[in-house]
């Protein structure tokens, strides 16, 4: 599992509330990613990071922000959750030597 954990694993929240999802890695990888996956769709990249305090947008970044204040943690924040953000969120790291991406176990977020 490349030492990736996500928290929380499940969350139910109400529309308009802020939500922060955490991705934690233990192996000092430079690149980290946040994806969302909806039924019938593949994964879509939200944001990614290429180092501490270095982040960039993916294909579906609207409504999301990220922060990476230390190598091991990559936070995804929904400033004001909407029902359209109900999804499964996956964090991933990229293995430096092999270029493989390893994914975390996912967080199932429901916005009511």
């Amino acid at each position: 599992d490349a030492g990736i954990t996500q928290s929380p694993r499940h969350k139910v929240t109400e529309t308009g509330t802020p939500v922060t999802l955490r991705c934690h890695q233990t192996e000092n990888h430079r690149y980290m990613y946040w994806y969302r996956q909806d039924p019938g769709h593949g994964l879509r990249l939200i944001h990614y990071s290429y180092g501490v305090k270095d982040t960039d947008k993916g294909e579906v970044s609207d409504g999301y922000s990220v922060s990476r204040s230390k190598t091991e943690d990559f936070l995804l924040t929904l400033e004001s959750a909407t029902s359209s953000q109900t999804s499964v969120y996956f964090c991933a790291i990229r293995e430096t030597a092999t270029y493989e991406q390893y994914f975390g176990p996912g967080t199932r977020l429901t916005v009511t």
Partner: protein
Amino acid sequence: LAKTTQPISMDSYEGQEVNITCSHNNIATNDYITWYQQFPSQGPRFIIQGYKTKVTNEVASLFIPADRKSSTLSLPRVSLSDTAVYYCLVGDLQGAQKLVFGQGTRLTINP
């Protein structure tokens, strides 16, 4: 980023060889081809990666023709546990490697 096209679904039987083909007509010179496998309620898992000709590992083989406009993932002697969604991705390995996942191929293995 090169777009990929693969069948939405495939069915096969235990013990058979399964070949899943992916089309990527606008693949760039520096792009590699990577396949991931995803089981329900789990994140995708790397299967195999290649640039040209043939690559084989303990799980699968990847065949890439000379023009690199398509690729074929070959799973030998599948079992029920190979039932999953398989994604073909194309991209440059350097830099941030922003992977673009399509809808994938839902492979169902029957007894």
